[in-house]
């Protein structure tokens, strides 16, 4: 693993942590449920995505990398579902088109 | 290595907190939550013993860790049973506590 890759990885992890901090601040500070959901899903999707991306240069093999990416994909899926369900609950179901 | 005393003290504090909650909370569900906190504290003490008992070459002592895994599963089973008993009691008597004024005996297990 080259030093450049390691540095880029650390940079991505730090950026991901930044998204988590910002997302948490948003969840605490934003006034209503939809904006809080917005903050939360940004932290989950982008923050975790950047952390996973940053960890990729450090994994010992392709199978580890695959598992890390799978974790991210599963969090995307469950996070999106939970956010949709909460939003639906707050606003009521969408009227039929 | 440095983690053991910190998490050991955390475990001790969790046992104290859980015991306090178990005694003063009135609602059954909150008592169950407090009981789980107490259990988590006990497990954490096992975890500290496991880390301290590790061999030089290998990791932590696997025996207490295996016991915690067994304990977690049994604690889950106990929680599931307690919740069902609480729900059934609520269904029959409408009560959400096990205070003696409801006519139910403290302890809850004979209420259903």
């Amino acid at each position: 693993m080259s030093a450049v890759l390691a540095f880029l990885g650390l940079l991505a992890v730090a950026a991901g942590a930044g998204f988590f901090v910002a997302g948490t601040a948003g969840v605490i500070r934003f006034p209503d449920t939809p904006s809080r959901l917005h903050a939360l899903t940004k932290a989950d999707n982008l923050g975790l995505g950047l952390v996973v991306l940053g960890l990729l240069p450090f994994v010992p093999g392709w199978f580890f990398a695959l598992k890390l990416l799978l974790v991210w994909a599963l969090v995307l899926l469950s996070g999106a579902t939970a956010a949709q369900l909460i939003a639906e609950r707050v606003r009521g179901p969408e009227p039929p088109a | 290595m440095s983690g053991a005393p910190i998490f050991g003290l955390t475990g001790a504090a969790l046992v104290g907190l859980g015991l306090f909650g178990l005694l003063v909370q009135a609602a059954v569900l909150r008592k169950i939550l407090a009981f789980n906190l107490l259990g988590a504290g006990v497990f954490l003490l096992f975890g500290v013993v496991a880390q301290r008992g590790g061999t030089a070459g290998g990791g932590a002592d696997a025996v207490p860790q295996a016991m915690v895994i067994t304990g977690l599963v049994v604690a889950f089973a106990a929680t599931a049973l307690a919740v069902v008993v609480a729900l059934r009691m609520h269904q029959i008597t409408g009560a959400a506590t096990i205070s003696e004024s409801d006519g139910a005996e403290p302890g809850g297990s004979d209420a259903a």
Partner: protein
Amino acid sequence: MTLDGVLAGVLDGLLAALVLAAAGWTLAAPAAFPATIGFVGFGLLLTLAWVRLGAPDVALTEAAIGTGATGVILLLAVVRLRGGEEEVSAATPGRALVLAAGLLAGAVGLALALAVLALPDPAPGLAAEAAARTAPLGLGNPVAAVLMVFRGLDTLLESVVLVFTVLAVWSMAPDRHWGGRPGPEFPRQDDGPLALLARLLPPVGLVIGIYIAWVGTDAPGGKFQGGTILAAMWVVAWAAGLVQAPSVADRRVRLMLVAGPLVFVLVGLAGFGIADGFLAYPPALAKPLILVIEAAMTLSVAAALALLIAGPPEHPPERVT
């Protein structure tokens, strides 16, 4: 102390403070729902503490069973136990009793804290003995080796506890509901986010659950963690109304429930003939035998957990099926 040591100490201290704060919130929250959410947060933070204590197997179990499965059961109960605030506040103990409880709990906590600080150095442990007994069997994960070999009886009894708990939960049902389907019935979702999740997730989750159970003998994981994931996949499909809980009279369900303990006992008894006694394995056959037990146990753990989450039967059995 090195910089690494200081950083690790700060990290552990922060984590411990967060664990205690979440525990405090679980007790102090104004209502049952936020308290339960606090408990789930507590469990996830505790999972990180287990990783820091060098116990990834316990961390997986804490996340899956201690937090996930327990959280689902508690949340389902919170929704169904709404109300009763006046009764609860009437039953809340007075100030003197709270003070007495606080003193007692404080004393217990303090005594434990002193015991932790006074733990002997060097620490006694069974690590060496367990390693010596389990090494010839060729299991890469020492925790799995302890669970299956060194303390196999504990694990066997625990699997029986799960079966008995399901029986105890079922027997909470009124007589007229006996033979019915366990738990509440959810409306079928053909559209919307939950329907999508319940169709996309289970195929992936089943593979992951089996994988976690399979790697358990050599890496962190095992039947309890994997079985919990399998149960969770069923719960997702159940909550979306895509599958119905099987009737408690269904023989296949009962067989699934007891398959693990049954295989475990049979292999244990076979130990009298092919090895040194109950629950002993001949070294040459140890790994295949353990894998057979683990496979059956994964199935039974998944069935037990799913049935415990669903609860007792809540409707009379359907006449025509």
